[in-house]
């Protein structure tokens, strides 16, 4: 019986990690539904970008207020994890404050965790006010209605509760240490939680221990719950920001990829030695689809982008189309891509690993043509994203599908393209008049 808590702890821990592993596998399977794209070049530059943008948060602080608050929560999250390591080891071995022999260093660590925890609470409260009281424009856009709004607030609540549990655990521990309770060795410094002392005044040792243990257990199970909540929420960015910045596009933002499938066709057309009456090659060669109408037509980087998006809306708040009241919102493009990918993933799970057509696709069922045609391809969204997500590439791939597979461009654009085809300019001017400006006044 003596080892019962250890066993229960180990079971909870394994359950938490096991479930998390399952989710990660599902995530990676879904991302791999995307088409292959080579992003293994320039490793040095890629590592540097990851260090600068994900680790160093350089694009977050472009907007100083949310940026600095975010850095606090981020540092809190990373640094307080050192404490989680101690908690896990304590849980497994039935020890208490295993790292206490570090002495002064330990006091410093616990002290700084507490200060950070307090700062995190302050930051999260400000975040909550920005979302729910100040209602900043980017947080109340149409795509944020319903689950996205709940999800965002839920994350803030979980973070506050976790921090309070951490402080309560320390506060009760501190009180027990002062009382000289056995097992509660004098260790750590408690610059924040010592102020909880009045709450514990007059409590019996056994009640205090109950408070301390409850907070300890709820804190660690809360963390494991949060870890598993990630996959079902926009919060995956805390993990995916790193690979996402690593694999992000390194080329100039204005450079759109040249479709190789098209290059091959163009070469054939231009090659005078090709026999136009030649029989098609043997075998069942499926002609390649141009552009994207569903998530499986996108690349795995674009799909990872979708899972990485944390719906902050900086892209949308910089989008010229959105600023002037058009339906297009780059954030919605990412959210739609993710939601459709989840739907496709579930379909595959339900049908023994094979996708059964469900009569839907990303185009129309999620992203409307009106949104796609409103884009000016200005790259403001790409520049604004703190983790280098590229909504523009998805918009362009979907336009490619509309134009090359469906001939469904707006009629004005068809005129423009007709002009280019016929006379080499987007307007109906004769190519032979191109030099007329020389003699005009």
């Amino acid at each position, binding site marked *: 019986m003596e080892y019962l808590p250890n066993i229960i702890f180990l079971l909870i821990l394994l359950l938490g990690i096991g479930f998390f592993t399952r989710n990660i596998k599902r995530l990676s399977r879904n991302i791999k539904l995307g088409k292959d794209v080579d992003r293994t070049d320039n490793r040095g530059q890629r590592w540097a970008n990851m260090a600068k943008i994900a680790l160093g948060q350089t694009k977050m602080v472009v907007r100083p207020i949310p940026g600095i608050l975010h850095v606090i929560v981020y540092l809190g999250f990373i640094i307080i994890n050192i404490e989680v390591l101690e908690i896990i080891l304590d849980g497994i071995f039935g020890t208490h404050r295993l790292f206490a022999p570090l002495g002064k260093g330990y006091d410093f660590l616990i002290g700084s965790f507490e200060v950070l925890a307090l700062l995190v609470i302050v930051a999260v409260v400000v975040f909550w006010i920005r979302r729910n009281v100040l209602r900043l424009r980017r947080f109340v856009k149409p795509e944020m209605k319903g689950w996205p709004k709940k999800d965002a607030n839920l994350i803030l609540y979980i973070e506050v509760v976790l921090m309070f549990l951490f402080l309560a655990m320390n506060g009760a521990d501190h009180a027990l240490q002062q009382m000289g309770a056995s097992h509660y060795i004098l260790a750590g410094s408690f610059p924040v939680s010592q102020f909880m002392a009045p709450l514990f005044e007059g409590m019996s040792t056994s009640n205090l221990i109950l408070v301390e243990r409850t907070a300890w257990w709820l804190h660690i199970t809360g963390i494991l719950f949060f870890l598993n909540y990630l996959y079902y929420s926009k919060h995956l960015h805390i993990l995916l920001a790193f690979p996402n910045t690593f694999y992000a596009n390194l*080329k*100039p*933002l*204005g*450079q*759109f990829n*040249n479709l190789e499938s*098209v*290059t091959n066709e*163009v070469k054939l*057309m231009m090659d005078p030695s090709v026999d136009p009456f030649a029989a098609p090659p043997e075998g069942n060669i499926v002609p390649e689809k141009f*552009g994207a109408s569903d998530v499986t037509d996108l690349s795995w980087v674009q799909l990872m982008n979708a899972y990485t998006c944390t719906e902050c809306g900086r892209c949308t708040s*910089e989008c*010229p*189309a959105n*600023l*002037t*009241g*058009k*339906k297009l919102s780059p954030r919605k493009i990412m959210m739609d891509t993710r939601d459709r990918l989840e739907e496709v993933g579930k379909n595959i799970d339900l049908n023994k690993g094979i996708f059964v057509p469900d009569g839907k696709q990303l185009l129309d069922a999620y992203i409307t043509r*009106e949104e796609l*045609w*409103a*884009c*000016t*391809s*200005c*790259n*403001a969204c*790409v520049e*604004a994203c703190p983790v280098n997500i590229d909504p523009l590439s998805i918009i*362009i791939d*979907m*336009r*490619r*599908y*509309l*134009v*090359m597979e469906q001939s469904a461009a*707006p009629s*004005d*654009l068809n*005129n*423009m*393209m007709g002009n*280019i*085809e016929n006379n*080499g*300019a*987007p*307007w109906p*001017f004769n*190519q*032979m*008049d*191109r*030099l*007329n*400006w020389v003699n*005009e006044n």
Partner: protein
Amino acid sequence: MAQMFANGQKPEVLFWVGCAGSFDDRAKKITKAFVKILNKAKVSFAVLGTEESCSGDPAKRAGNEFLFQMQAVGNIEVMKGYGIQKVVTACPHCFNTLKNEYPSLGGNYEVIHHTQFMNELLAAGKITLEGGIFKGKRITYHDPCYLGRANSVYEAPRELIQKLDAELVEMKNCRKKGLCCGAGGAQMFKEPEKGNKDVNIERTEQALETQAEIIAAACPFCNTMMTDGIKNKEKEASVVVLDIAELIANAADL
């Protein structure tokens, strides 16, 4: 170009005029201003003239990769025939397309924007700015998306404005955060989607907030959009939209 080639001459640089610069009445003035500067600086240059065709940019942004690549391959063949190595253009869309999207189709050139080229000419002392008709004037600069964010060229045009002894005033959104004029992504050639405002009006309002007398543009399409915005706001009497090449040509009294 054909003439020079026939005479066995090879120009130092090819001036890629672009469709706007060739056909649009407003943009033709930019073309001429830039040509005056090239002549003044005694740059040996050529234009493709009737052999030039659309770079393919609007087709590509609209999603028509076929048409884009057909255009690109055609242009690349023409330039290959003349052995072109260096290209200068006053259009950021042609600039971006030729610089970034032609290489993998076989077109490798040193491509520079006219604001960069004019800076080089000034630095080399090939043109000098005297007088100072723009001295002390408030000028705001509108970053074209395909020059700024797309290719990180932010300073070349600004340096030129500063050389005019003018007062450069920035808009609320500038450089990396520059707001689009509304023409990019083939929007120039279609009606905008339903909304509550046109993008060029939003941008024009930002420009007017700076109290500038001149809106400097570096793209023929931005120029059109901003000029339309100024007309819409009925400010034609107090604010003009000029390309950087026009500013320099005027300042150098060309």
